[in-house]
């Protein structure tokens, strides 16, 4: 059923050509590619919070950008409520769609234009999308958006500039800008990782309350699996451009199937001095995404590696309802 899915990624692939030096381009026959995202598929249902978890360089940010068509995919499709986002006209139709799909970036020091006042920053999407008729309406909407994020009184914040605000306040401005259009789908790429711990939870709670209020679907991209566990309904774990495991959050966290998920969870420090665990620390570091290992991409670090893992790439198979894993140890 197409109607029941807010967003679907189907076999998304993104390869970035590697920048070579002048002489190397003369000698080398093939241009090497960074395999940032390789055959990634998932669905996000209405009002669902879907978490994309992985270490830096695993392709989670690229996936988020592909979904919003901020970059063009090498192959694959993205469907938003039945519309193929990757096939429509970028100028006219995509612009209309952007009203319904919004994004919050990681760094509130980079994502807000330093030369625009807070008012203009939040009003910009309203003006571009022409959802309001008069300047008075713009004012009301901006004030409302600020109030919703506890930036009160709104008049005090409207005419300030980003440099006058703290990191937490800036990120709340970025959230206000994303929600002023009441989007149906929102991507947040590490929205709180730049903030101090004491204000992190507060900003996250505001973000979640808005998602509930507007019944939006939400893609939460993060490296912090402990935080993802607390807010996401379902999780997908990425490793070197591929989803290795997908399922309900509690299932994935309490009963990880893929050896990588297991290692990732056991590596997270636990804030409890009484619970000292023996952790399965895997050796080595993530291999290069230019020449990903053949077979299973995790085989170079996997503690359970077998002969087949070096040769055959495991597919992401559903082993029980709503639970998928890409590992040769599990069969459908």
């Amino acid at each position, binding site marked *: 059923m197409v109607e029941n899915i807010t967003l679907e990624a189907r076999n998304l692939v993104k390869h970035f050509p590697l920048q070579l030096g002048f002489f190397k381009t003369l000698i080398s026959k093939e241009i090497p590619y960074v395999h940032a995202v390789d055959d990634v598929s998932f669905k996000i249902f209405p009002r669902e919070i879907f978490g994309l978890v992985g270490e*830096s360089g695993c392709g989670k940010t690229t996936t988020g950008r592909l979904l919003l068509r901020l970059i063009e995919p090498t192959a694959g499709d993205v469907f938003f409520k039945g519309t193929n986002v990757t096939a429509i006209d970028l100028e006219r139709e995509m612009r209309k769609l952007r009203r319904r799909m919004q994004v919050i970036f990681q760094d509130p020091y980079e994502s807000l234009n330093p030369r625009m006042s807070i008012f203009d920053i939040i009003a910009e999407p309203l003006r571009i999308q022409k959802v309001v008729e008069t300047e008075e309406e713009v004012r009301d909407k901006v004030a409302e958006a600020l109030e919703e994020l506890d930036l009160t009184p709104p008049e005090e914040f409207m005419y300030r500039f980003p440099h006058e605000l703290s990191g937490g306040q800036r990120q709340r401005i970025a959230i206000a800008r994303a929600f002023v259009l009441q989007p149906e789908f929102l991507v947040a790429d590490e929205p709180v990782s730049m903030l101090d711990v*004491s204000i992190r939870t*507060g900003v996250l709670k505001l973000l979640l309350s808005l998602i509930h209020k507007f019944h939006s679907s939400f893609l939460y991209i993060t490296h912090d699996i402990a935080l993802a566990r607390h807010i996401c309904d379902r999780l997908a774990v990425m490793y070197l451009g591929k989803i290795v495991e997908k399922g309900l959050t509690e299932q994935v966290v309490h009963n990880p199937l893929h050896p990588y998920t297991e290692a990732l969870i056991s590596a997270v420090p636990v*804030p409890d001095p*009484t619970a000292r665990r023996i952790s399965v620390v*895997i050796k080595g570091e*993530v291999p290069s995404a230019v020449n990903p290992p053949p077979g299973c991409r995790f085989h170079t670090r996997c503690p359970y590696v077998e002969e087949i893992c070096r040769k055959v790439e495991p597919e992401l198979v559903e082993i029980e309802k709503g639970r998928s894993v890409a590992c040769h140890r599990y069969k459908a």
Partner: protein
Amino acid sequence: MELLKVKNLKMYYQTLRGYVKAVDDVSFEISKEEALGVAGESGCGKTSMALAITKLLPYNGKIVHGNITFEGEDIVKMSDKDIRKKIRWKKISMIFQGAMNALHPTYSVGHQISEAILTHEDVTKDEALERSEKLVELVGIDAEKVTRYPHELSGGMKQRAVTAMALACNPDLLIADEPTTALDVIVQAQVLKVMKELRERLKLSWMLITHDLSIITETCNKLAVMYAGKIVEYGDLAPVYSEPLHPYTKKLTKAFPSVIGPKTEMSSIPGFPPDLLKPPPGCRFHPRCPNAMEICRKKEPEFLKLDDKGRYVACHLYT
């Protein structure tokens, strides 16, 4: 026996707008083989405190009051020359935040480690190089990798190489300032494991500075919580963490999500950390404190010793 004793330390930065009271009247001790974790938000003075202990102060930073006693000698009164000769590297060494990026790109790792040994000890070049090989093995890097240049190593390896360098002159106390902040969780776990093993094997004392309480609970046995230039709570890790007394510690321990155990309600602290140019009067936490009373706005709470086990708290609720 205590190794390092810091008493009523005040370290201010002089700026055009006045003094920034980065470290204000801080006292604590580190005994032999003890691991102290210092937790706090950015800008609370944790790094400034570490800089004061090693006297690596920037031009506008000054220790205005207090003593730092290391093995009976007061570092504050020592001349720069003596500190360089006797204390730094040999007694106290430090791993800085983002230290892995502080490696010189055009010298091999072995060269840089032996350079540290050569400056501080009277050994030949070959001896120093041999020792640097042993050091990198200690942190789990192949000895042959000492000839590599920093760009040939991964982030985790560089961080371990910097740790090896800090151990070059057999220090008694290692100060690590956010040693794993730039690393991914799995690499972070690898580095922390190496550091923990080293501490046990070499009988080191250490002071770990981080904003992430969960790293402290996994590696340390004492905890000091800093807020706005002051230590607000200090004591053995388990009691401070499980039964926090100061409202700030209470809130802070709840701000960290756990990947195991039952899902707990996460809480945040309203408001923002204060500007240290003009810290609030009275208790510095009072504008954000849920238990703030009249006295908190006026009188600064004392740093009170609560029991014989060395538990301290600075809060009017316990006076």
